[in-house]
């Protein structure tokens, strides 16, 4: 379990993380979403004791991370897969970690196999690794001590579609066995499929959090009509705000029933009426983080 309460970090007076509070429960996967530079990594570093918060605090498994006696056995961390010594062989990088926390060498081979790094890959120096291979090595490193909590920053970066599927299955399985997963991404589709809970951060502040269903409810209704103009008029006269969805329909900031009533009183025939699902989530994510995307 991870609990964060009011985490705040300032650099030279500017808050890069501001009053971030959340909770990740055992048996669940939490997706931490936001554009690059929104404060995801800094938040995770504060949770892991690598950066000191200017305000607020975080606990992992009920205590400050720094107070866990041998944290490698309880919390698996991957904050930057590229942050490995390039001149070290893959297997050696794992061995160093295993020795530090005190697990035997057999565990290293077991994990190399589990993450799909074969003997020849394990013998290579990390310099020769693709980003995807580094992510696999990093996941293996995080799993060394058979932890209860996983904290992963952008673990899907550089993974091919097969690698993404593999990681999703691994994380789902980890949570199904009672583990807590906290992972970040700047891309919605990477976490949408596996996260039980989503946290959306922008400019250092959490702008939305909840289960997928909760966010979807807020994400509105997707509606289509053969006569789109009539639908727009009907929604407007009912006082509902709508915006175009990518594929011709409208996303309305209301539940399906309210949209149906508006269409009925406007005399508009509908061809589709349902919660907005992925399209809505995508739009929500885009709206919540749009300014930064444009700056980028």
């Amino acid at each position, binding site marked *: 379990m991870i609990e964060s309460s009011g985490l705040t970090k300032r650099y030279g007076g500017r808050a890069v993380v501001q009053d971030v509070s959340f909770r990740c429960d055992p048996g669940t996967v939490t997706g931490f979403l936001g554009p690059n530079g929104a404060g995801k990594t800094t938040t995770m570093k504060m949770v892991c004791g*690598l*950066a000191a918060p200017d305000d607020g605090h975080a606990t992992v498994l009920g205590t400050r991370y720094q107070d866990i006696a041998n*944290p490698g*056995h*309880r919390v698996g961390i991957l904050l*930057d897969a590229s*942050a*490995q*010594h390039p001149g070290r062989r893959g297997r050696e990088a794992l061995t160093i970690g295993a020795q*530090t926390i005190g697990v035997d060498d057999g565990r290293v081979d077991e994990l190399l196999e589990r993450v799909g790094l074969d003997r020849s890959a394990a013998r290579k120096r990390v310099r020769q690794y693709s980003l995807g291979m580094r992510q696999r090595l990093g996941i293996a490193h995080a799993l060394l001590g058979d932890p209860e909590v996983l904290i992963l920053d952008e673990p899907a970066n550089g993974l091919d579609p097969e690698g993404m599927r593999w990681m999703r299955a691994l994380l789902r399985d980890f949570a199904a066995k009672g583990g807590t997963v906290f992972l970040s991404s700047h891309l919605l589709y990477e976490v949408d499929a596996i996260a039980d809970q989503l946290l959306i951060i922008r400019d250092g502040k959490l702008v939305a959090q909840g289960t997928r269903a909760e966010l979807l409810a807020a994400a509105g209704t997707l509606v289509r009509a053969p006569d789109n103009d009539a639908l727009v008029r009907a929604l407007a006269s009912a006082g509902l705000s709508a915006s175009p969805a990518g594929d011709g329909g409208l996303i309305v900031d209301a539940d399906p029933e309210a949209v149906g009533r508006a269409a009925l009183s406007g005399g508009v025939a509908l061809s589709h009426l349902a919660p907005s699902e992925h399209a809505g989530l995508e739009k929500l994510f885009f709206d919540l983080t749009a300014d930064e995307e444009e700056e980028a």
Partner: protein
Amino acid sequence: MSAAPATRPPLSRLTLVELRKMTDTKAGFWLQLSVLALAVLVVVVNALAGHVQDHQFMDYFSGTSQGLSALLPVLGILLVTSEWSQRTAMITFSLVPQRTRVMAAKTLAAVVLALIALAIALLLSVIGTAITDPGVPGTWRLPPGAVGQVALYLTATMLIGVAFGAVLLNSAPAIVIYYLAPIGFGALGAIHVLDHPMLWVDQSRAMEHINDRFLSSTEWAHVGTSLAVWILLPLAIGMERIQHSEIR
């Protein structure tokens, strides 16, 4: 989910890990090898050059330890700075969040490396002396105190490296400043009024004769104060910095 061991990794294990990290990378391996090669070179040069009387054990021992001391500080610096330049600090400090423990392990690893260097100096000196034995009396003379002084000298230069690494957390500046600082101290010492005071803070002058003769009590005092300036001060500043900085 494993039953997690509730104990912290012991310092001895962390020290072994730090020693391993020094040799398990390509750069680390070649650096260690070049330190060894330099010591061998010193023995070879000493054997080929000079008078027969200069081929006594103490000549070799003093020469090899001088040679080793030229490169040991670089090992000390990299022991600390490579974590930052290669960005492995994030992994190291997330596995061992007590940063002072990691730094203690690095300091111990530095002492172990210095003692290994001492053993190498002794071994190479034995080999060199055996090959070129001038046959004069006292060739194999080795005052026990001399070994102690050289051990201290090698350990001190190694720890100066650790301290410089800790205060700068960046390999290149630490190495450059390490080699330039004695020149600056020397220049200050050349100013007449500063000549005597500088003896108390300039470690290269304070330890000038530590390899070839026994030091007087005043000279020991110079060694003590100058090492405080070169080791304790930067190490304290560095520890403070490491303790409170964000690990990137």
